[in-house]
């Protein structure tokens, strides 16, 4: 029962039909059970591969890039800072997957909230009858600027129940141009993973929050590079800020 349309199936799967042909073939697909069943069978082909574990932090990076498509430059700098702005709920810090571009104020509030969690733990642990609290380790580091870079920055890392929350804030940043972004990386033995990107506000400040749901790596370095574009999985630009971190923390 092959007809002329059925012959286009492989071009359709190969993505080489032009717009008009594509429409025609899709109309044919709706009418031709055999072609549809063949297409359906191709949906099982990935199971011929060995199952692979996702790259560390992959979900966060991908969803960040996906949703970032339409959340381009928010007019952050135009807004006057409101001191009574409520802090984000602590649950946001546990969202788990998302990197976000925070205004410095929100980032600061979030940092306080993270510090609060860690502090609450230390308070609890002083009391002999306190229930076993989840293990929390907290570390802040000042990022060192590379030569010829004027900016400054700090990073806060909170390890809690196997997850890592990372908050990076930077000031006095040089403005970016075109598609440029400041990209944050965690490194272990010189191997980086991207952990969120940001562009500076008009006040030349920027911040990014990142969560790794299962963090077992023992990162030894944090770095910020100026990348020519968003979404690089390995650094292409120069390192502008960096610091050693304690892999045991």
């Amino acid at each position: 029962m092959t007809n002329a349309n059925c012959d286009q199936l492989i071009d359709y799967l190969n993505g080489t039909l032009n717009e008009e042909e594509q429409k025609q073939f899709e109309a044919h697909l709706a009418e031709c059970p055999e072609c549809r069943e063949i297409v359906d069978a191709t949906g099982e082909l990935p199971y011929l591969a060995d199952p692979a574990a996702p790259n560390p932090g992959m979900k966060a990076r991908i969803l960040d890039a996906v949703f970032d498509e339409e959340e381009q430059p928010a007019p952050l700098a135009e807004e006057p800072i409101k001191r009574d702005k409520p802090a984000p709920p602590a649950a946001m810090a546990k969202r788990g997957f998302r990197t976000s571009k925070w205004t410095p104020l929100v980032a600061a509030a979030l940092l306080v909230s993270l510090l609060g969690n860690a502090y609450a733990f230390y308070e609890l642990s002083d009391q002999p009858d306190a229930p076993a609290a989840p293990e929390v380790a907290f570390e802040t580091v000042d990022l060192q600027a590379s030569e010829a870079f004027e900016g400054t920055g700090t990073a806060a890392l909170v390890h809690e129940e196997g997850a890592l929350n990372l908050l990076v804030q930077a000031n006095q940043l040089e403005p970016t141009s075109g598609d440029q972004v400041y990209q944050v990386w965690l490194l272990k033995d010189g191997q980086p993973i991207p952990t969120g990107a940001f562009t500076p506000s008009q006040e030349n400040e920027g911040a990014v929050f990142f969560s790794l749901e299962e963090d077992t790596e023992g990162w030894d370095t944090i770095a910020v590079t100026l990348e020519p574009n968003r979404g690089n999985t390995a650094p292409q630009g120069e390192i502008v800020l960096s610091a050693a971190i304690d892999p045991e923390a």
Partner: protein
Amino acid sequence: MEKISDALLYERVRGKDKAALEELYDRYEKMLFSYLCKMTGDRDLAEEALQEVFVKVWRGVGSYDESKGKFVAWLVTMSRNAAVDLIRKQKKPSVPLDEIAEVESTDSSVEETAEWQEKSEQIHQAVRHLSEEQQKMVHLFYFKGYTHETIAEKCGIPLGTVKSRIRLALKKLKTSLQMVQEGGVLDDKREL
């Protein structure tokens, strides 16, 4: 509670529901990433391809509805084509060889879940019923990242013949897969 169908989730994605997109991502991350890793032989490139697929889903590029078959098949087609494009552009990062070995060996495979195992057994069994030539066509088209033009070139076969061979291979795969799924174990001697 009944699981929401892929098609319904996709509808919600079209209405810019981020949670629905995340649910679809969770459903197919492992399957598509495993496939893309095998196809590209490069975990970074596989991630890039997967990202392109979900950016397209979110933007509504080449919209899906049930008249086009199963949602997962539509995703697999998009994944394959994203990877073919990236391979063609040769965007593979230049990582020194000794580092590649290390990256690849770091938890590159995970334990198979029962569902994965079942699906995997079914498709492997179905593929075994294809002729050697048909297996080769499926392999080149779906796992080597070759377009039908490239296959025609490499194998020295006219393009029209390549297309009809891939079609025939996929048609037979469909039939044998249906029999495996319906009948449990397929009798090896049975003619398809």
